[in-house]
């Protein structure tokens, strides 16, 4: 298992959550504590155990390729924190995806 000291600022950056100094310290400690608790999993011998992504097994759930109704545009845009005409507007984008 990995170290319990986590770079909470880096993680918060990935999660896109701004942290205050106070939060960074508090969350850093709490997350470290929690990781110490979850580290008990290292006691389990899992080398030959398959991972479970879904507990009720199911396969090939697909829909047939048919187009259906969409939402009304005004309903959609009325949710927008900021709109411009028929578009959602956001502040300037820095960097590529």
């Amino acid at each position, binding site marked *: *298992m*990995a170290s319990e000291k*986590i770079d*909470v600022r880096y*993680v*918060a950056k*990935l*999660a*896109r*959550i*701004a*942290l205050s100094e106070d*939060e960074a310290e508090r*969350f850093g400690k*709490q*997350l470290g*504590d*929690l*990781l110490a*608790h*979850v*580290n*008990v*999993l*290292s*006691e*389990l011998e*899992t080398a030959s*155990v*398959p*991972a*479970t*992504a*879904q*507990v*009720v097994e*199911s396969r090939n*759930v697909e*829909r047939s390729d048919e187009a259906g109704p969409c*939402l009304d545009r005004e*309903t*959609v845009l009325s*949710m*927008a*924190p*900021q709109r411009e005409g028929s578009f*959602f507007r*956001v*502040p*300037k*984008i*820095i*960097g590529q995806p």
Partner: protein
Amino acid sequence: MNDVVKRSAAEIARDVNAKRISARDVTEAVLARVDEVDDRLGCYLTRLHDLAREQASRVDERVAAGESLPLAGVPLAVKDNMCLSGTRTTAASKILENWIAPYTSTAVQRMLDAGAVPIGKSNLDEFAMGSSCENSALGVTRNPYDLQRVPGGSSGGSAAAVAAFEAAIGMGSDTGGSIREPGAFCNVVGFKPTYGRVSRYGLIAFASSLDQIGPLTRTVEDAALAYDAMAGHDPMDSTSIDRPVEPAAPSLREDLEGLRIGIVKEFVTAKLGAEIDALYKRAYAELAKLGAELVEVSLPTADYGLATYYLIAPAECSSNLARFDGVRYGLRVDGADVGQMYEQTRAAGFGPEVKRRILIGTYALSSGYYDAYYVKAQKARTMSAQDFKKAFEHCDLIAAPAASSPAFEFDSKSDPYSMYMMDYYTIPMSLAGLPALSVPCGYAGTPAMPMGLQLAAPLFEETRLLGAAHAYERATAYAVEGAIAV
């Protein structure tokens, strides 16, 4: 208080279908009850007077036209992480505080189609993350048995509403115990069906592989009625189970003859103190008295459930909650560029518990830690499911506590981990996707607060589970009407 509000869902539906009372009259009585007590209890984040009256009238019209509806006129509390078109749907988060859902979740729609009347959107821990409702960013819900105590969570609003006669059926969602624990705290039946039995379409996701909708009711019979209405395959949810649902309501039993009930060796109730230990020993004895054969079973990895859960659920939530970004809907806090806007919006919009879980989940999935944490937890999950599979070779049902303690006082659990421990007994069943419920089993503490007995069944065995819970409830009747404080 008009006594109509105390009637069970089964009674109300029967009377409305028989035209002995109109859905409209039931609705008015419940709305009056809500207006009378909910300022103190805070079960509902949004009261739906207009919608309730409209729906009640529609139900009356349908009944007048000769239809018989399984939930005709039954007052319904909808947990506010379920979309109901045209209503504010918040997940008890500031980030969605003013969001009006433009569509209705499948489970809610099925309840409405069955004739239920939505009274309000009930409070929860923000994004269903919590065990006390204290993580709601939008309101405080109090336990109807003691207003100084929490109703449990995350489906605390629905549990309290049902206990306090503000609804006959509460819709809840359970990820690690979020129906069963508040059910126990509020002395009602809290039922989580098999994962995939009830569509998640329109349920605001917390942890997709664990989330499951189910009812909170005052009787097991009502839980069965609600389950029969909401369960079933939904083509809009890829994880919805495509197999027939055996109706549970007709299979309720009066005894437990021929059933083997497993008591889990690793769940040592003595750890919970003498009073609670005695209470659960009594509950198990009551099961035996009803004819069940008690057998000891082992869940060797039960102690790892919490750790497994607190990696898988946060990992999934860190991704599920990414969409709350201030671009398309919900809260936006402006920033100089899109990146800053995201960070400020999410910093202001999410409460501390949600942030903690997003951070832990992000960490568990991040490069270098994925195998050590996330994959390890998925493997532990496999072991947990295998444990149950083996245990059910020796028993038909498993009995266990529904929570580690009765409802506690507000602000009494400051350390996140001690709060997480509340779900110690419910998480293993969630990891294995099993149907499980809590049913009132007595009182403990001072003042005496309700406790719940948890029963769990193998996958898809909801009928067996509800049938047995019904026998227990009929024989014991711990949910004493009138004990509530409002």
